């Protein structure tokens, strides 16, 4: 596609609810990142995929967070039993070669947990 596409753009979840955030990277980009961005902060790394392999998940804040990219293209970030501190913008980015080349970001999903 023309750019990185994320859906939904906005999500309101009740505390305890599970959510799934989708990322459609640029076609041909082997690298995919998920970041969490709180208001007034820089993007915080969550996890990184190279094709379908999740090479780094050290940034996932708890075992309630799970990400997958089963066919090496579309990725889903799942948050189980959401809590208020999970409220943030979740950004997906893709690139040709990890952090060594330009990363293209999607518009993000703003998650609000009430």
């Amino acid at each position, binding site marked *: 596609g023309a750019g990185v596409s994320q859906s939904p753009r906005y999500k309101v979840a009740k505390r305890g609810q599970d959510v799934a955030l989708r990322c459609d990277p640029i076609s041909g980009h082997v690298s995919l990142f998920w970041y969490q961005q709180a208001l007034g902060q820089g993007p915080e790394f969550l996890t*990184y995929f190279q094709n379908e392999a999740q090479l*780094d998940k050290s940034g996932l804040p708890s075992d309630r967070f799970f990400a997958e990219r089963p066919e090496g293209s579309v990725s889903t970030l799942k948050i189980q039993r959401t809590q208020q501190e999970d409220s943030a913008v979740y950004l997906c980015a893709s690139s040709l070669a990890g952090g*060594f080349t330009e990363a293209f970001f999607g518009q993000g999903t703003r998650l609000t947990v009430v």
Partner: protein
Amino acid sequence: GQQVMQIPQYQHVQEGEDFTTYCNSSTTLSNIQWYKQRPGGHPVFLIQLVKSGEVKKQKRLTFQFGEAKKNSSLHITATQTTDVGTYFCAGPHRGSTLGRLYFGRGTQLTVWP
């Protein structure tokens, strides 16, 4: 662990004034990337610097990468209202095979007309 620090956190300038933001890493970076995020938007890539001491220019923007590859700066000459946004530096640390990008906290630039 890896930390990328940026200063200042906020900068307010009058249109026409210059602006500089500084980025410092606790470890050597293999490259440094700069991104701009407009209010309500997502980060957009500006430039990548790879070589020690490298300087690159994009119109009114000048980017520098330090000799030790631990610091970088972005300088904007004669700011315009279109420069408003948050500027982030980011980089994978040297030796990283994964290319995990660490982002600084950003410098939020406000330009008064």
